[in-house]
């Protein structure tokens, strides 16, 4: 496989030609913040946290879905990017009801971690306070739309790893919602196998094990990557 050479934050980096900028940066120990990315699951560039600057390109590009190219000069942490990332986080917090103090994922939340990493000590935008429900119909899991950031990790693990196709995205813009089957209560879903991969994938407190209370939801992300790797390398028969 042909290798490509590019510069990331002034550092000369060698990458395989089908790698993304995010993969190349991580191989070179250059951190880029992400939210909708999940190791082992296809990327969609939904959250825009991983936007990077490329010299000679006016647009900012999401590192998770941009392939490496020979001679690219990439900047991952300029003042402008830091400013936009904090702005994005503030908009995410303002869009729905993220009440960290009473959230199942308090202390184990990727959104909360990103906020502290980006110096977000308050939100400058008006909180939208939408009136959203919580689906507690499923026997094992709960779905709290108040905490959802619409990263679609749960949808992707449901379709591409489990192959059940239960979870989906309905609506547009801020009216978008995660739905189960034909927008019916989760318990009425014919397709859900109750595998729990969606719960493992969720970065916030939107998907949780029923019975988990404040700060109790901890997840094992490596489980998903482990399943994907085992399948791709045919280490077991499915």
């Amino acid at each position, binding site marked *: 496989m042909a290798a490509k050479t590019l510069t990331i934050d002034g550092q000369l980096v060698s990458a395989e030609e089908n790698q993304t900028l995010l993969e190349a940066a991580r191989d070179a120990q250059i951190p880029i913040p992400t939210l909708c990315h999940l190791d082992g699951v296809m990327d969609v560039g939904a959250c825009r946290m991983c936007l990077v600057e490329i010299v000679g390109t006016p647009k900012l590009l999401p590192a998770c879905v941009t392939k490496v190219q020979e001679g690219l000069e990439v900047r991952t942490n300029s003042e402008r990017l830091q400013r936009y990332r904090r702005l994005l986080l503030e908009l995410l917090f303002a869009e729905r009801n993220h009440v*960290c*103090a009473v959230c199942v994922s308090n*202390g184990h939340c990727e959104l*909360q971690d990103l906020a*502290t990493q980006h*110096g977000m*000590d*308050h939100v400058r935008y008006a909180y939208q*306070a939408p*009136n959203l429900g919580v689906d507690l119909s499923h026997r094992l899991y709960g779905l709290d739309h108040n905490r959802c950031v619409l990263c679609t990790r749960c949808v992707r693990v449901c379709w591409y790893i489990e192959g059940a196709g239960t979870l989906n995205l309905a609506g547009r813009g801020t009216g978008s919602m995660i739905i189960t089957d034909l927008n019916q209560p989760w318990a009425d879903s014919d397709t859900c196998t109750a595998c729990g991969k969606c719960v493992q994938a969720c970065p916030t407190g939107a998907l949780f094990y029923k019975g988990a209370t404040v700060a109790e939801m901890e997840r094992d992300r490596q489980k998903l990557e482990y399943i994907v790797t085992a399948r791709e390398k045919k280490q077991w028969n499915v």
Partner: protein
Amino acid sequence: MERLRLATVWLGGCSGCHMSFLDLDEWLLELPARAELVYSPLVDTKEYPLQVDLALIEGAICNADHLELIHQIRQRTRTLVAFGDCAVTGNVTAMRNPLRRAEAVLNRAYIELADLNPQLPAQPGVLPPLLDTVLPVHAVVPVEYHLPGCPPPADRIKTLLAQLLEGRTPQLAQHQIRFG
């Protein structure tokens, strides 16, 4: 050295931030040497005084009294700190905002969920009317510094206060601005 005129204020919150303030333990004994507590739920002053140097505001703006008081505080205070998650974000007190109107909130609490004797509390002149929307402090008046946490742990309060008492611009570490 002249002592700083310090106020702490309890608006729409559970007083947990003030409890955390009391967790400063022996540091509270050193504090009077550098600051004079001129207004607080912990001291008996009815009127918010003039020329306050620093005020820690616990709680969100939830009712008409809070709204009136916060404007008075802003006029009379040099530096405001939004003290804890309710002041910074609205937090638990703002969880009623999806119901949109104060009337809907009161109905929910006192009529729909009442087991006995459902009725709306009405004591004009005693109970301040609720605002339709609970607001973080910075959405109503300008705020100099934010101290997140539910409640902010005592060491976090100390870090901020110690820097302010020395006249420095406070710097908080990443883990010290975590909500929740």
